[in-house]
């Protein structure tokens, strides 16, 4: 399918190219709009590709010049800023102005500049990382010096020739022109782009394929035409025009993308096509998203309420003013001053003007500093989360990264967690654990101990001295090889003793070279018994081979063992390579033969009669390299050497007597060859399971040494290297759940099918049971062991083989070739063909591979669950594996029931959902209350989804979560996510304690998250590590990426990046809780503070004829929020801990607090408002009565009120603060000192300034008055009295009810 579409793409591109070239010459300009033309920079002295972006990247938003206008423009996107600027400007209108216009601008300017400085700092950081990247080195061909010289990345231009060495990162998008690889291939790792760690092959442009000598840039005179830069990583079209006029098509197989790493290729040369910002990687790199947290949304509602309150009190006062004016009628009192123009304002006009004035005076009600304070606090919170040692991972030297700065508090409000499985819950390190061959279990105790060691090492590093001794020495039963292996594993251990973390670190670095090859995965300690048998077996075979005895004389047990390992070794797609040198592909090249294209051709060349005659075929022809069939094909089923098989069959007659064995001279000294290969061979596998099995086989000296498209070379003990002719590979697919290879066995010369697949499938495909007693026994035993493995949470695979007679094979081959060449329904036919082959298998054994859970996953899952979080696992893995892992990480409980939804059609799915819903209702609803209560008390599982919105569909009793697990597969999920069924699906899923979605596509993952998020109105968190989780991470309220094995894609899309899954516990339970509770309290406090302050002014309006007068000096009024009362709340907002980290970790149920938004309920806003009004009444009327009918003047009276308000507000914060550190004390003392210092300086500074208050010597006089101190004592006490009393009452009540 892919091949087809690519072919059409190529032809299209070529066609377009041809036509373009015809039109080309004249309409060059026109054409350049659609394509890009790249010429080599060596061609001309001046730069031939001038108008293309160079490789310098700049991700900064501003330059020095553009900073101010651009930043201001961006800041004015926030509505609040516009509002405050509007108010400040309103002050410049003389009729309505309340303050000195310049002074009124101060807070706005302050807020804007704080934000601007923050932006500047962020931009500077971006600038620094840009510079770092821009100054990385690469080798660029210099036409002056005629050699490759080191240049910075930023100096690379389009059209430059770049020489790339192994493990270098590509600086730009490069068209591959030459490679040191004999096949003219270049391997790249695209982990940074798409997160896939397996190597991808890229090809040298076709016309440079045959270039045997080294590529010389000066001989390059071609012109490249390709498409404009775009962000599609999987598409590249273009063509290259040579001087001769020859035109070659370019496709994505020729393009090396920026950010990828060159692997396994010593050297490659390419020409830069796209550079800098025009590279596909940069075009894919979108900036961080702006997310608004739930708390902020809630806050905005209350800000809106504040606006309404503001409007109400302003209108009230305006009406009051109008009436006040009206009562005097025409008799104008002396104190009612005319407008500056001397005109007499009507009461109505006055009221309107006053309304505007009051909006200015009361503007503090909308907390200007709230937004900036929240940002500051969030930055501090992010900083503290960053600095947490518990979230630091020693192995990878990475800690948590907060990529979204503004949703820290959302972490404390999560309700649903959607987790990926592989790489998130598990390490994505497949470790071979146990196997059973021919019905005998080999428990691999030593291996288990070895694995246990890895875990212990992590925890008890200091005490690992003793471990060396505990390892039992293998006895003499084992051969010398096995002794060596033991030694080897011991040396690993002694190595660990010096520092397992260092080792692990090295491993992680090594694993950057090759995926899935940490020592844990590689160094498998073989089971001595099995190893002995393998040795025995191979030596027998060796003996037999020497004496030309037929192999069938081997005991069936032993032959099963050897077959088992051969199957492990070859039944996969693992590619062998050595990391630092190009592969040694020493092989003769035969000229290419045209592939079999038609069935006629096939019939002509292939007749069954010839097959029957040949019994002892040669494998010499297996060396034929059929490269054309190998090109970038990811076809489902391919027969790379079907054609060569046929060729060989032709030749068979003539070469009848040729040597039986492979031309590779058998190496008899297994040990020597082992040593030779050890450390050099690396296995590049598409999936970690495959790698694990190959490494396992290698531990038994059955090692894969080479894989070519048509041949697999295996090294066996005693037997040396054997080449298996690879006839077909029937790749893995999710429906068949197995893969097979068809090979020609070099020793027995039989055509053998090795199949590896899920136990459930293979067991059904075995030969009918009546075939033999032995086989029956094997099947029975193996099944037993399989169940055992599954219970241990191992991924099980069955290995089976089948020997085909030549006739059978020929018969099948014919059908298969027909299928391959079919035009319609090819996929289906190939599938059928595969099914035909994989029948009547003979079971060899089974393996148990462990995808090791990450440390602490079960504990984390348990803790998160106790915290009331629903955990759903969405995985692309197959159902069995997912269920196994779910059991392993305690997501599913063996005791609880499991609903499995597997449906083939929409109707079936609907029915299934309906049934399970009935089932749930019947089973649980009648006794739900009882059970829930019980569950709550026994398990600490808060069973209520206690969210008012979630009850919308169920307005009856609160919805309960039962002890029930739901497993659904991808196909059923697709039906269930249909509009008609989604509600039902949700209903079922919601009542289950855990939900497991298997075989789900990335799109489905995001759909599930979206569905839950939108329908249930809950906060969702998605966590994943791979590219397939990106969509889910982006959809969720909070996306968490695991910066693990699978590259950076998930991390790039995430809001938080964690090194390990278990850190989620502290991140959510501790930091999330803290951030939420801190911010919630701070926001409420802000509303309270501002309301309290504004209310003081409002009460005064009753005593000044609603004239908008303020007794508080305008300076205090404006700087009160910004300076005097700002710091303590920031400190509290950053550092306050309502509950200690230890308690939060110990009692995860405290997390429910945040989920239910307990700290900030809508009514709390009003409670705070009422409290604010009460306190302001106290703070206003105590001084009012104390100074009633006295000779006090306006601002002398206002000064104690300001002071009292400050004291009250700070003390209020003090009561709200749960933990007092020295920073809290300091900030409060600082605030008070600051107020008095500023007041004293201000009041002493100028006798004539600061009209109208002109507060000269006011504060100084106040400080001499005993009355002032008496007021300062009684007012805060009275104002705050209800609070501790209320709290105490609540406590008492709480204690009482408990």
């Amino acid at each position: 399918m892919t091949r087809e579409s690519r072919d059409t793409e190529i032809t299209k591109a070529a066609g377009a190219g041809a036509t373009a070239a015809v039109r080309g010459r004249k309409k060059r300009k026109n054409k350049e709009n659609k394509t890009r033309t790249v010429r080599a920079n060596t061609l001309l002295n001046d730069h031939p590709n001038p108008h293309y972006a160079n490789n310098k990247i700049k991700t900064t938003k501003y330059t020095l010049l553009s900073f101010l206008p651009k930043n201001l423009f961006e800041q004015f996107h926030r509505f609040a800023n516009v509002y405050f600027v509007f108010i400040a400007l309103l002050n410049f209108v003389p009729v309505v102005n309340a303050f000195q216009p310049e002074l009124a601008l101060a807070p706005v300017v302050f807020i804007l500049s704080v934000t601007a400085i923050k932006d500047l700092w962020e931009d500077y950081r971006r600038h620094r990382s840009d510079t770092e990247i821009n100054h990385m080195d690469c080798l660029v061909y210099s036409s002056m010096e005629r050699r490759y010289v080191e240049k910075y990345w930023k100096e690379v231009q389009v059209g430059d020739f770049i020489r790339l060495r192994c493990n270098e990162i590509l600086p730009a998008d490069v068209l591959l022109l030459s490679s040191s690889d004999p096949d003219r291939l270049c391997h790249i790792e695209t982990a940074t782009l798409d997160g896939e760690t397996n190597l991808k092959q890229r090809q040298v442009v076709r016309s440079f394929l045959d270039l045997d000598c080294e590529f010389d840039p000066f001989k390059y005179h071609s012109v490249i035409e390709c498409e404009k830069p775009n962000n599609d990583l999987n598409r590249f079209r273009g063509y290259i025009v040579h001087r001769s006029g020859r035109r070659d098509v370019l496709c994505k197989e020729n393009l090396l993308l920026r950010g990828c790493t060159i692997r396994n290729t010593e050297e490659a040369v390419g020409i830069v096509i796209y550079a800098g910002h025009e590279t596909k990687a940069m075009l894919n790199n979108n900036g961080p998203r702006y997310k608004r947290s739930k708390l902020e949304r809630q806050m905005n509602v209350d800000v809106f309420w504040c606006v309404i309150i503001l409007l109400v009190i302003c209108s009230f006062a305006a009406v009051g003013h109008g009436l006040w004016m009206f009562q005097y009628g025409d008799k104008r009192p002396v104190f009612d001053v005319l407008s500056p123009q001397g005109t007499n304002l009507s009461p109505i006009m006055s009221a309107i003007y006053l309304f505007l004035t009051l909006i200015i005076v009361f503007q503090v009600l909308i907390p200007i500093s709230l937004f900036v304070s929240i940002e500051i606090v969030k930055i501090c919170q992010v900083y503290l989360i960053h600095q947490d040692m518990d979230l630091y991972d020693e192995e990878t030297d990475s800690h948590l990264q907060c990529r979204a700065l503004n949703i820290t508090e959302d972490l404390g409000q999560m309700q649903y967690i959607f987790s990926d499985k592989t790489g998130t819950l598990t390490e994505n390190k497949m470790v071979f654990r146990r196997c059973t061959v021919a019905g005998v279990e080999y428990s691999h105790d030593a291996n288990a101990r070895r694995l246990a060691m890895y875990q212990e090492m992590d925890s008890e590093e200091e005490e690992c001295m003793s471990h060396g001794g505990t390892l039992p020495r293998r006895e003499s039963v084992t051969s010398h090889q096995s002794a060596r292996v033991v030694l080897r594993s011991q040396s690993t251990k002694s190595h660990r003793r010096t520092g397992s973390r260092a080792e692990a670190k090295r491993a992680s670095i090594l694993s950057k070279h090759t995926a899935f090859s940490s020592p844990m995965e590689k160094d498998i300690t073989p089971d001595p018994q099995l190893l002995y048998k393998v040795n025995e077996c191979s030596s027998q075979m060796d003996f037999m081979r020497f004496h030309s005895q037929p192999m069938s004389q081997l005991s069936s047990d032993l032959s099963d063992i050897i077959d088992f390992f051969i199957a492990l070794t070859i039944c996969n797609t693992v590619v062998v390579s050595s990391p630092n040198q190009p592969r040694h592909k020493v092989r003769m090249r035969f000229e290419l033969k045209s592939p079999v294209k038609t069935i006629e051709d096939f019939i002509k060349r292939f007749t069954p009669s010839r097959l029957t005659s040949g019994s002892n075929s040669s494998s010499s022809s297996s060396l034929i390299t059929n490269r054309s069939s190998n090109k970038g094909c990811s076809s489902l089923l391919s027969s790379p050497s079907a054609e060569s098989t046929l060729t060989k069959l032709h030749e068979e007659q003539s070469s009848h007597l040729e040597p039986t064995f492979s031309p590779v001279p058998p190496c008899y000294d297994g040990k020597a060859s082992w040593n030779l290969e050890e450390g050099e061979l690396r296995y590049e596998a598409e999936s970690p399971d495959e790698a694990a099995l190959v490494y396992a086989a290698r531990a038994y000296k059955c090692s894969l040494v080479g894989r070519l498209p048509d041949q697999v070379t295996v090294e066996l003990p005693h037997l040396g290297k054997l080449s298996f002719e690879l006839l077909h590979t029937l790749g893995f697919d999710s429906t068949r759940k197995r893969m097979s290879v068809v090979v020609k066995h070099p020793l027995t010369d039989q055509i053998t099918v090795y199949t590896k697949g899920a136990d459930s499938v293979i067991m059904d495909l075995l030969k009918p049971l009546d075939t033999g007693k032995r086989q029956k026994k094997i099947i029975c035993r193996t099944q037993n062991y399989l169940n055992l493995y599954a219970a241990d949470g191992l991924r099980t695979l069955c290995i089976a083989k089948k020997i085909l007679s030549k006739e059978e094979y020929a018969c099948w081959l014919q059908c298969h070739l027909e299928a391959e060449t079919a035009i319609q329904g090819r996929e289906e036919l190939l599938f059928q063909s595969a099914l035909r082959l994989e029948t009547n298998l003979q079971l060899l054994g089974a393996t148990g591979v462990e995808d090791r859970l990450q440390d602490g996953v079960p504990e984390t899952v348990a803790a998160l669950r106790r915290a009331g979080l629903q955990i759903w696992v969405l995985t692309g893995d197959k159902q069995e594996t997912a269920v196994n892992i779910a059991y392993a990480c305690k997501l599913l409980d063996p005791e609880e029931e499991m609903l499995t939804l597997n449906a083939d059609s929409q109707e079936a799915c609907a029915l299934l959902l309906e049934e399970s819903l009935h089932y749930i209702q019947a089973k649980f609803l009648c006794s739900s209350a009882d059970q829930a209560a019980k569950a709550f008390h026994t398990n600490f599982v808060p069973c209520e989804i206690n969210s008012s919105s979630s009850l919308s569909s169920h307005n009856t009793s609160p919805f309960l979560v039962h002890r029930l697990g739901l497993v659904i597969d991808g196909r059923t999920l697709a039906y269930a996510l249909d509009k008609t069924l989604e509600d039902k699906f949700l209903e079922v899923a919601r009542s289950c304690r855990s939900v497991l979605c298997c075989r789900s596509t990335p799109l489905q993952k995001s759909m599930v998250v979206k569905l839950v998020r939108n329908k249930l109105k809950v906060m969702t968190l998605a966590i994943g590590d791979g590219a397939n989780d990106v969509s889910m991470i982006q959809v969720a309220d909070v996306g968490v990426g695991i910066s693990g094995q699978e590259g950076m894609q998930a991390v790039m899309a995430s809001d938080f990046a964690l090194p390990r899954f278990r850190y989620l516990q502290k991140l959510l339970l501790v930091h999330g809780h803290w951030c939420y509770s801190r911010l919630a309290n701070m926001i409420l406090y802000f509303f309270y503070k501002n309301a309290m302050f504004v209310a003081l002014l409002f009460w005064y309006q009753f005593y000044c004829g609603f004239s908008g007068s303020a007794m508080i000096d305008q300076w205090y009024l404006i700087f009160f929020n910004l300076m005097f009362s700002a710091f303590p709340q920031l400190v509290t907002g950053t550092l306050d801990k309502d509950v200690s980290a230890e308690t939060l970790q110990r009692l995860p149920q405290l997390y429910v607090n945040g989920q239910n938004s307990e700290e900030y309920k809508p009514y709390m806003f009003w409670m705070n408002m009422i409290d604010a009004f009460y306190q302001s009444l106290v703070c206003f009327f105590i001084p009012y009565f104390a100074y009633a009918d006295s000779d006090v003047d306006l601002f002398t009276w206002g000064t104690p009120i300001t002071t009292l308000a400050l004291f009250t507000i700070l003390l209020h914060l003090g009561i709200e603060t749960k933990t007092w550190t020295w920073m809290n004390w300091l900030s409060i003392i600082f605030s008070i000192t600051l107020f008095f210092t500023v007041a004293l300086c201000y009041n002493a500074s100028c006798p004539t300034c600061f009209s109208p208050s002109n507060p000269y010597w006011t504060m100084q006089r106040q400080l001499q008055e005993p009355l002032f101190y008496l007021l300062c004592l009684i007012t805060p006490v009275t104002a705050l009295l209800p609070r501790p009393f209320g709290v105490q009452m609540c406590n008492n009540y709480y204690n009482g009810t408990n």
Partner: protein
Amino acid sequence: MMASSYNAKEEDGHHSGSASHGGAAVVKSKKPDNTAFKQQRLPAWQPILTAGTVLPAFFVIGLIFIPIGIGLYVTSNNIKEFEIDYTGVDMNSACYSCAKNFSWNSTTSCLCTVDFTLEQPFESNVFMYYGLSNFYQNHRRYVKSRDDSQLNGDMSALTNPSKECEPYRMSEGLPIAPCGAIANSLFNDTLKLYYLEANGTRNEIPLVKKGIAWWTDKHVKFRNPGGNANLTAVFQATSKPVNWRNPVYELDQDPENNGFINEDFIVWMRTAALPTFRKLYRIIQKKSSTMPTLPSGKYVLDITYNYPVLSFDGRKRMILSTISWMGGKNPFLGIAYITVGSICFFLGVVLLIIHHKYDTRSTGADIPN
């Protein structure tokens, strides 16, 4: 902590390795510092509002506030105060006719006399206030309507007053000195106090007009332009405020109390906080230690009635008061302290009872769950 044990050599080796293979070189570990601040382990005091802390606090507050309150209340009660309203709203009152006929435009003064009796003698210094009610000196536009530079003796502000003074800035082309609405509405009643002896003779009581304004106002904030020399010449090019009878340099004969530094003027310029206010008018100083400053008996108050307040329903009062360390007579603060103290005490008792009751019922239920 664990990390400290692994040796640096190895680490270096790795990093050079990782650097050489092409990635960005990481020179030092990103491990966060183990400081109390960064790990959020700062030592902290946790004031938990429990019965153990709240109850004593309530009792202590109660015990401190009640005595203070009693003290304040006694002090306030010892202050003698006498107040008489001479607005002339009532038909029977002496100033009725003056109040009725008078307006800002009147050129001649209206005189009226009010008799009153002091029941108790006033010891120590007595402060004489005039009080206005319903007079919104705190009106926003009124408060702003002044020019502090002008009042500070700035010559340029004298001839060119601030815009804030509008519409009382210029009069007939000349700048008004002092400009603005506050100055324009200067209180200009003259009060004279006589002691009516038993034989009917009126004994004028000496009223001191110095020291009624803040010292800083008199000496720093308010200054006559060009010193105190020849105010008439200095104010030559200015016009008197519209409502004034006399120009500013004729406020008093005493050059130390004339012009902008006239203390009555300064006191008026300090705008009152509330619509009912009093302003210090004169001080009656204690003459001897034996005689009360104002003995009990009959008094006569002579009023030159210049200031109309009836148009806005205002009231004018004359107040005689002694003062204490805490200011004038005001029982409020004392009562407030007593009340709050009692409430605290009461709440403490209530809490104690509640706490006791619940505490005995559920022991050891401190930690829920």
